[in-house]
């Protein structure tokens, strides 16, 4: 449904897109995950025909975004990172205007607008000027505006950035529902690992304008060497004994110790635990607790981008984050 092929775009010295390629199958929620400044919004602008790429090509619903912009625009709904709500109009007026500009008229339009207001919990506030809406309400209105003409493909650029956790969770439910019930293809960008993990059926990790890894979240995590096993020792500092003790345990790799905590990877963490405990017990090393964790997208990011997600975020000034609202 969406194909991006070797997209390139620069702003002066900055290479915002540096050979970005990915493909989104019909009916999927596809996540573009990356820290601020990775080039996610630029990708969305190119795919939604707002900006032109310097190189490469992209298709949405079969139409070339550069040559067939008109037809692409008819097919897509866009929720930009920066809200596009007109704060001097009411929620209903915003929706009606968007519908008219999408070529809808009369009863069809007004019933669609009312249905969307209802669906997004804005019915009570529909007659109020949106200047007074909360961040979550404005964001929901943004999505309703993007959906008024029943697009086939929906672009959501950081739909939950800046929202409270509960509001974010409600938004996640709403987005999943759209994909499930309405068969929409959704391209979602986010810099929240958790959001990508929760929502996306497949995702591409973007760093410095290119895709560094892609696949289903579970696949990406599985491609790492299994689970992480963390053991907290009881009262004693770990020492060389630990390595000696664990060297005999099969299937364990990357054993490291840090103070009282030891860390290792195992193909199947839960299965490794009894053997680990037995080996430590045999060397009379007391254990306080054991934790097995599935690899997180954080681990995936660390692996493919060569730095932790938090470090990548910190590297960029927060300008983008603020511009998001």
């Amino acid at each position, binding site marked *: 449904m969406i194909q991006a092929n070797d997209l390139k775009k620069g702003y002066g010295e900055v290479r915002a897109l540096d050979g970005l390629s990915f493909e989104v199958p019909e009916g999927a929620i596809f996540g573009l995950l990356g820290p601020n400044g990775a080039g996610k919004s630029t990708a969305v602008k190119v795919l939604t025909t707002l900006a032109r790429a310097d190189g490469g090509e992209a298709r949405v619903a079969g139409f070339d975004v550069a040559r067939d912009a008109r037809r692409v625009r008819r097919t897509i709904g866009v929720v930009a990172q920066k809200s*596009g709500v*007109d704060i001097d109009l009411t929620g209903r007026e915003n929706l009606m205007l968007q519908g*008219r*500009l999408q070529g809808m008229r009369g009863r069809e339009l007004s019933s669609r607008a009312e249905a969307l207001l209802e669906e997004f919990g804005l019915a009570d506030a529909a007659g109020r000027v949106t200047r007074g809406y909360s961040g979550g309400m404005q964001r929901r209105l943004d999505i309703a505006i993007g959906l008024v003409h029943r697009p086939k493909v929906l672009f959501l650029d950081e739909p939950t950035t800046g929202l409270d956790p509960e509001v974010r969770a409600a938004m996640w439910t709403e987005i999943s529902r759209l994909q499930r019930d309405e068969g929409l293809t959704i391209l979602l960008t986010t810099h929240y690992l958790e959001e990508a993990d929760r929502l996306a059926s497949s995702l591409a990790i973007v760093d410095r304008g290119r895709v560094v890894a892609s696949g289903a979240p579970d696949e990406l995590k599985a491609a790492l060497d299994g689970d992480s096993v963390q053991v907290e020792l009881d009262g004693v500092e770990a020492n060389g004994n630990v390595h000696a003790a664990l060297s005999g345990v099969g299937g364990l790799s990357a054993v490291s110790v840090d103070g009282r905590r030891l860390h290792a990877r195992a193909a199947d963490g839960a299965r490794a635990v009894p053997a680990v405990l037995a080996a430590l017990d045999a060397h009379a090393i007391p254990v306080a607790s054991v934790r097995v964790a599935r690899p997180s997208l954080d681990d995936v990011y660390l692996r493919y981008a060569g730095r932790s997600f938090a470090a990548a975020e910190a590297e960029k000034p927060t300008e983008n984050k603020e511009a998001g609202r």
Partner: protein
Amino acid sequence: MTAVADTWALCVRDLLRLWRQPWFIAVTLVQPVIWLLLFGALFERVVDIPGFHGGDYKQYLVPGVLVMTAFFSSGWSGMSTIDDLDRGVTDRFLVLPIMRWPLIAGRVGMNLVQLAIQSVIIIGLALITGVTFPGGPLGVVALIVAAALLGTGFAALSNALALVARKEESLIGAVTFLQLPLTFLSTAFMQASLMPDWIRSVSDYNPVDWAIRAGREAVGAGPDWATVLGYCGLLVAFALACLVLATRAFRAYQAQV
């Protein structure tokens, strides 16, 4: 056809926004009144200058104030466009399957509605204070049309500037830089025969003065319609050029997003 409907929808949007800013409306309506009364009183004695023909100065001033009103209010048209840029509204509109020109035309339409109301106030007040329009109702209509053409041009130009500069300060700078010189390089306050030669020559190329000359000719006794139409023709060309420029300015904007 759909582009016309889009223009209308966008114009209604702007009118709604205008309606919700009572202070702005108040200023819009009061300003021309103040100009007419203030300049009328301030320059009252201008008519005593030898060579100035026509009795009451206000009689002379009305077309100038009406055109000035059109010129000044339309110059700020781009401010709403900068708001729209800042708020992401323009980006939303630009990915809609609509043409570009309605985005400009809708906004210009709002300016013209505003001007129509201001015109009624100015003409009404002029009549109340004893100004006569020997050219008759048709002359008054021609004056308003000339002012509207000028307003269309400058509103479009203001939008073009807004899309290129994208900053309030730049637009405010450019507009204020143009407003007073263009007003005083015209016959708004002073008869052409009493102006220094160089100002008279410059005013030949000043669209503001084209509108004033057309309007003053039209409302005067025994108007020469060829003159009126000639200047209106120039104003149409000016307005169209500005509209095209503003529509093109979206391309310049989109090259930077």
